[in-house]
């Protein structure tokens, strides 16, 4: 068995380097396909980052009645935090609301003067609620408008924001659907192009395969070196793809960060380097080996 494996590996290795033209073509196509997978992977990271950013900007403010006690406020906050749909609840006291208002209008003296005319703090204490996902706000609202909390709440601004939230939610879902469809189409195209390139390379060897059979080589003895060649192509392609991807991420990192307001592709590369490397290696080797196995099958019938 060891002798068999050693021979299979030696045949595959020497064939790979003697049939350079076709193998360079195979490695090139495999590299492009692996890079395609990698770009889809990083795009998913980028799209998620942008979606999270947008989602983080969505919140619902619950304005509380002026006579609410501190205990009621804390109890309401605690109850909300226990809900799995709630990501965060920020308490804005009357004083905080007043300070924030003054800060926002510090360059508009007439507005600040009008506050002095009122004489008291006209703002309500409020809770700013962020849901884990934008489609969960209606569930949170249902709880808030239940009898338990209704008497503590003055107003909820969800109705005003509802349309915007729903539109964003639909937009995010559409982006996800388009991205998944595009990814599937590109993956299928990549796999088919790789498979056809390897099929052509094996077709080129069909006469040799016939000779091997006539000499008395068993199917596994014929198939083995082609699988080894598939593995070598996969490994070399994944290494080239990793290097190319590293360079592209390094060059485009700052630009992408500026466009997306915080998503740096090079930082992403750094934090995903290990998983990315193994993903590329795995996809390269699997594509190389499976394509070889399927392509060679028709030449081993008799």
């Amino acid at each position, binding site marked *: 068995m060891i002798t068999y494996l050693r*021979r299979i590996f030696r045949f595959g290795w*020497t*064939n790979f380097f003697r049939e350079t033209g076709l193998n360079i073509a195979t490695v090139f196509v495999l590299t492009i396909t692996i890079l395609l997978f990698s770009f889809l992977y990083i795009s998913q990271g980028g799209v998620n980052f942008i979606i999270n950013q947008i989602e983080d900007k969505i919140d619902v403010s619950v304005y509380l009645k002026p006579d609410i006690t501190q205990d009621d406020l804390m109890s309401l906050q605690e109850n909300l935090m226990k809900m799995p749909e709630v990501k965060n609840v920020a308490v804005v006291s009357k004083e905080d609301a007043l300070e924030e208002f003054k800060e926002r209008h510090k360059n508009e003296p007439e507005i600040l003067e009008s506050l002095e005319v009122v004489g008291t703090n006209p703002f309500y204490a409020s809770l700013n609620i962020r849901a884990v996902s934008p489609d969960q706000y209606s569930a949170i609202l249902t709880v808030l408008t239940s009898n338990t909390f209704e008497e503590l709440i003055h107003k909820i601004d969800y109705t005003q924001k509802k349309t915007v939230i729903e539109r964003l939610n639909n937009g995010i879902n559409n982006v996800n659907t388009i991205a998944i469809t595009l990814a599937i189409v590109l993956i299928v195209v990549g796999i088919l192009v790789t498979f056809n390139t390897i099929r052509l390379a094996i077709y080129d060897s069909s006469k*040799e395969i*016939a*000779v091997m*059979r*006539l*000499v008395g*080589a068993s199917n596994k003895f014929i198939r083995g070196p082609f699988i080894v060649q598939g593995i070598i192509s996969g490994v070399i392609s994944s290494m080239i793809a990793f290097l190319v991807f590293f360079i592209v991420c390094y060059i485009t990192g700052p630009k992408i960060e500026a466009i997306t307001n915080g998503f740096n592709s090079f930082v992403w590369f750094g934090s995903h380097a290990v998983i990315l490397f193994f993903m590329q290696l795995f996809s390269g080797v699997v594509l190389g080996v499976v394509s070889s196995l399927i392509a060679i099958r028709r030449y081993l019938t008799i």
Partner: protein
Amino acid sequence: MILFEDVSKTYSSGIKALDKVNFQIGSNEFVSLVGKSGSGKTTLIKLLLREEELDKGRILFNGKNISKIKRSHLPSYRQKIGCIFQDYKLLPNKTVFENVAYAMEVMEGTDYEVARDVPKLLGLVGLEDKLDRFPSELSGGEKQRTAIARALAVRPEIIVADEPTGNLDPYHSRDIISVLEKIYELGTTVILATHDKDIIDRLERRVITLDKGKIIRDEEVGRFIL
């Protein structure tokens, strides 16, 4: 050793290649198959190698019906037959040494046996100084001698040569036939398919003559008569 009994073969195109062919070849015989192009010589060899399936009759090799050999056992059956073809059928990406070694390696010969026997075999056919050449760097005669060395590497019970001199000039043709005679004298059965009159007449051995898929003559010391 080999028995053809009422063997017929018609291709899907409707061409009848062999029609009720009967003959027997014993061990250590040198038999020539002669006939015009299309007379059925190559089909006969393909059926013997089970590259093609026969329609009627049966072929026995050492008493065994070769049609009943399972596909998984075909490689070991073919290893008993050393083949030589007009177009050499060498592996272009392997050197002379590797082409011959390949035949031994598929038979699970050890590295020691390969290193010991391949130079000897190449010495037998006069290629001991061209071990590292690729087929594209050899002349036609040298390619055919490599193919002969490879056929011998599996220690076959018979050597089947299908038009081995078809692409060679008269000098190299005589050279190849004398190598085949040497192999026969060392105790191996040789089946030679050819339409070279000079070769057949000079050999003075058994000749089976085919015409339109039928055996029209089978003589112990035959001549090329068509």
